[in-house]
């Protein structure tokens, strides 16, 4: 059960904090998710989310779709200059990583069903072209959380 193993991995990752870049293997494809967090949003309409998908495998994969229990719609946005553009899909190269970080590409949660609050967790499903879906329990951090300093 690949999905189950990954889910357990994601939960374990959450438990040991987001500073870990993730070493959870999904049992073959080599994708793992780390450094996930959501800054507590200002409004109850939209939020951003960040994470790093590491690919230890020899084959590239593609992040194709993202869903979450808290949002009617989750899109992947690429930052282009000072604007955001919706990305249809994002490549995760073999032996590489896909970095969604503040100031760069990010997940955008729209049509929020509730306002995520600091200390809560938001469940996010990541869908790939090849690998089975991965569920990430994304911790909600302060609005000013800086992953470099950890606060």
């Amino acid at each position, binding site marked *: 059960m690949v999905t189950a193993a990954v889910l357990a991995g994601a939960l374990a990752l959450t438990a040991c904090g987001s500073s870990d870049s993730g070493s959870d293997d999904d049992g073959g494809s080599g994708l793992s998710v780390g450094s996930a967090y959501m*800054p507590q*949003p*200002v*409004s109850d*309409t*939209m*939020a*951003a989310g960040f994470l790093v998908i590491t690919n230890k495998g020899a084959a590239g994969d593609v992040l194709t779709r993202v869903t979450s229990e808290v949002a009617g719609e989750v899109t992947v*946005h690429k*930052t*282009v*200059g*000072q*604007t*955001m*553009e*919706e990305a249809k899909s994002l490549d995760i190269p073999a032996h590489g990583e896909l970095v969604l970080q*503040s*100031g760069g590409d*990010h997940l*955008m*949660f729209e049509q929020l069903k509730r306002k995520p609050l600091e200390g809560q967790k938001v469940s996010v499903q990541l869908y790939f072209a090849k690998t089975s879906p991965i569920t990430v329990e994304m911790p909600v951090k302060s*609005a*000013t959380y*800086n992953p470099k*300093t950890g606060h």
Partner: protein
Amino acid sequence: MRKKLFAASALLVAATLTLSACGSGDDSDQSVADVSVESGSDKAATVLDQPFEKPDLVLTDTQGKPYDFRAETKGRPTLIYFGYTNCPDVCPLTMSNIAVAKKQLSKADQDKLRIVFVTTDPERDTPAALGKWLKGIDPQVVGLTGDFATIQAGARTLGISIEPTSKDKNGKTISMHGTQVIAFSPKTDGGYVLYGEDATVDDYTKDLPKIIKGQNP
């Protein structure tokens, strides 16, 4: 349409080249500032050798009342940022960083400081929408909206280039935020310090007490 920023801080040669490439040759001299950069400094703040003049911006505040930026912030330590509320990442982070740093000032200093958020997306950011969003950050922040051309012209005098909100080919709305926060001195009313997007709470916390006094951070 080009949506590239140009940073008048002239920190980046590339940015300067972009400016020329965009053909914005009608920019007055003041939009390109001389910048002091201490070698080896990793400070978030960039102190300008030649400060910006305060933009002549008369816009509408979150109460729907006219707000004259020059008159209202005269002699006050002031921070200005151009962004929009449908911006999930950089805009709320920038404003929250400033708001959290501000809370660490004395009450008297907090009351002296003017923090002004000017929307780059006036179509969606009505006074009410701005007010609701800013309440989630800091109710003391002044939110301004109005005619886009006025906002764009004001931003340009501070070396900040913004384009109007547009739709992409999928019908998604695309707006643009500024990249810099500019601090104005209470002593000279000049915009003398720039902060980029990577300025943190700690940077603002360290610098705001100096900006309140008009000193260089």
